[in-house]
Every structure is written in C-alpha cells, then in structure tokens.
C-alpha cells in the first residue's frame, strides 16, 4: 500500500515537473520559430513560484475557488489511471480502477469544473470563452470518443491496460497502424484538446484576452498552471497508451511524450486561428468522419 501511495505521489510530482519543462521548451521552440531567443526552459518554474508567493484579495464565490482544484483533481485522476511503463507494475498506479470511458468522463469533468469557476468570476470575456470552450469540447469529444470506441471494439477490450498490452508485438501492432483513420481522427482532436491553433478559440488573445482565467491571479493562477501542466502530461500519456503502443521504458515514455507534445506546438506556430463556427464545423466533419470510417470497418 505504501509503495502504491509513494508511486502515485512520485507520478504526480514527476508529471508536474515534466509538464512545466515541456511548457518551457515549447515557449523556446515557438520563440525560435519567430526568430527570437525566447525565455529559458525553466521559465515556467520561475513563473509558478512567483505566482504562488503573490498575495490575493479577489473573491468571486465558492465555485471560483474550487475550479482549479477540480482541474487538478481531474488531471491527477487521469494520470494515475493510465499505466506509465509497460511491464513495471509499480507504475500502473490505479489503472485497474477504470476503463477508457471513465477516463474520457474525468477529462470532461476537470474542464467542466474550470468552466463553472470561470463563469462564477462574472467577467464577460471569461463567460464568452467558457461558452466557446464547451461548444468546441463537445465537438472534439465526439470524434475522440468514436476513435476510442473503434479501437476498443477492434481490440475487444475497454481496459486501458488491455489496449496497451495488445500493442506489444512490435511497431506494426501499434494502433496508429492498425486503426489509421481512427488515429488520424484522435490526433486531430488532440489539437483543440491542447488549445493549439487553429483551434485556439478559448484563450484567443486578440478577441477575449486570456479567456477563462481573466479574473484568476496569484496562488489560484499558480494552481491553474499546475493543473494545466499535469493535465497536459496526462493527455500525452493517454495518447501514447492508446495509439503509440505505450512506453516499454522510461526513456521511451519521455521520448514519445516529448515528440507528441511538439506536434501541436509546431502546428500552432504556423497556423492562424479559426472562428468558432469554423472550428466546430471542421471538428464535426473531418475527424468525426475519419473515426467513423474505422468504426464501421471494425464493426463489419
């Protein structure tokens, strides 16, 4: 039991560090694409510590305070329900506890809590961003869910452990090769999940500056930053487990999550932003159709 708890604690701490470091690297990469030097890769740690030590005197009701906790809780739940390294049972944490549908629900739960908190702040920009975010989320969740169902039906298991175990017979057994259309749909849905352009309509700095966290400051903002870093890593590990055969070693885990993280960063750097209706129309048609193709193929 103690080993299990310490493994979970180390997973959370490690994911937070890796998430913040990945954020720093992405800022540097984006800056280099712009032709700038950019900040140091540890900049996110510095920002987080500064925010944590700032005073806060802002109050907008109970939900406002609880929202970052919802997000962190959602991220931690996703994180500990996905096995990290295949074969090392200690890193499986709580992966026995639920299947992929529970994971999708918990991912939605974290974002929903955030939306309620941002709505409670009463700032018009936050409310606009929340309505955009929820509309977009229900669009990409559709294609992502269909892709997951296609994979699960094809492999005859909804357990994340089973999906990972089914991909251990070499690189060609990875789901990205066995279910190429569903994988393409899921990877297109990954862009709005990471709030990458052209789907960055939630934060949209030129229209609704910063969006949901407009009223958040100081320690609350530092919790939100931590939640975002944790959530980012949780989603990366989930996608690696679903599509890229899981990780057979720690090095494999870091390399795969790093490369997967760079995909929205690079796409984001070269694309302009969709309007809300363009984003939703795209997500309803292209990734959903791709995922459906594989679902139909598997069902037949």
């Amino acid at each position: 039991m103690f080993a299990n708890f310490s493994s979970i604690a180390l997973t959370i701490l490690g994911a937070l560090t890796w998430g913040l470091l990945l954020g720093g690297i992405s800022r540097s990469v984006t800056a280099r694409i712009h032709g700038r030097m950019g900040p140091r890769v540890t900049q996110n740690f510095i920002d987080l510590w500064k925010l944590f030590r700032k005073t806060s005197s802002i109050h907008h009701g109970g939900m406002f305070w609880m929202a970052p906790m919802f997000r962190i809780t959602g991220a931690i739940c996703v994180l500990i329900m996905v096995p990290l390294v295949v074969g090392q049972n200690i890193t499986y944490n709580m992966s026995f506890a639920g299947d992929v549908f529970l994971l999708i629900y918990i991912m939605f739960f974290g974002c929903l809590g955030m939306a309620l908190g941002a709505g409670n702040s009463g700032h018009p920009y936050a409310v606009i961003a929340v309505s955009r975010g929820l509309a977009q989320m229900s669009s990409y969740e559709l294609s992502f869910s269909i892709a997951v169902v296609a994979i699960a039906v094809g492999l005859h298991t909804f357990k994340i452990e089973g999906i990972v175990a089914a991909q251990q017979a070499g690189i060609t057994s990875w789901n990205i090769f066995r279910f190429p259309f569903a994988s393409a749909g899921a990877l297109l849905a990954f862009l709005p999940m990471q709030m990458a352009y052209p789907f960055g309509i939630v934060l949209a700095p030129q229209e609704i500056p910063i969006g949901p966290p407009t009223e958040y400051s100081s320690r609350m903002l530092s919790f939100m930053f931590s939640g975002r870093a944790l959530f980012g890593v949780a989603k990366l590990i989930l996608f690696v487990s679903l599509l890229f055969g899981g990780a057979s070693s720690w090095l494999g885990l870091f390399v795969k999550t790093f490369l997967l993280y760079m995909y929205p960063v690079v796409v984001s750097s070269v694309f302009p932003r969709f309007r809300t209706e363009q984003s939703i129309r795209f997500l309803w048609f292209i990734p959903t159709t791709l995922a459906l193709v594989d679902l139909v193929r598997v069902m037949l």
Partner: protein
Amino acid sequence: MYCNQPPEKPGNKKELLEKITNMARANSLWVTAYGTGCGSIELRPLGTSRFDMERFGIAMRPTPRQADVLIISGYLATKTLKRVIRVYEQIQDPKYIIALGSCTINGGMYFDSYNTLNVLDKYLPVDVYVMGCMPRPEAIIDGFSLLMQKIKDGRAHGWKHYKENLDYYRENQKKIITDWDLPDYNW
C-alpha cells in the same frame, strides 16, 4: 549595560525564502498591456525578434489581475488618471510602476497643459523612471533591468509605500479627479 535580547541571526529561513522569491519576481515580470500615452508605441517592438523581452521573462498580460508591472507610457491625462488608479489597485501585491518619458517626470512638453499631470509620483508610487521623449526600446529594457535589480535587492517597495501613505496619495488624486466616485480601494 548589556543587551538581554539574543542577536538576530542573519540569513534565517524566512529571509532566504524571500530572497529566492525576489529572484523569481525579478525574472518573471508580467506587464499590464495598457497604454496610457504616446509611449506605448515604443513598447510594441519589445516583443519582436529585434528586442525580445521574453528572454528576460518579461511578458504582457491582458488583465491587471495577473500582472506585476504597470507602465505609465508617457503623458498621463487627468481623465486617464482615474482608470490608471483602478488598474493599479487591482494588481495584486507586490506590484511595480515604471514611468516612461519626460512627461511623467516633470510634464515634459506638456508642462503647462491644463489636462496633463506633471509629477507622477504625487499620485502613484513610481519605482523606476525612464527618461526621454520618447525612450527607445533599448532604454525601456534598461529601465526593466534597473527594476529587476531593485527587486533582487529587496528595494522595490513602491506598493508598500502606497498602502502606508494612502491618505497622501488619495488627497492628491482627489485634487485632480473632481468627480470622485471610486471605492476606498479597488480590489
């Protein structure tokens, strides 16, 4: 005569924590994106590849809730003062003000104008002045590095001074804002 108090130990834990935090504060300055005067045109190039303020950890934030620094960019009109007070007081502590240009120091070319403030630090606590009309981006970066050094040394106390002497500042502010309808403090 003898001292019955134990000597204070230098470098105790709290001081060390504050020093580390000051290093973080100095290397992560978030600026409220609010231009009060003509000088804000010189702020834009700071984000470009030529000057790249992000390499010092300086970033623009669209909301005062998340900012640390307020830049008074050039002349401050009497009409703008009320908005600037609201923005400044909504920034969470610790917070700093950089004043750009001659206008904030002594009114500059608007020294005898009926609607421009002459000496900014009568109304708001200025941590760093950057002189010039207008200061170039290099000068603004120099101002930022001065502010960073002040924060690291623990000398950037403008926000404390403002709270301790709020009556003095309010009196001066109310001389300018005749239709005062702000609360006691804008949280």
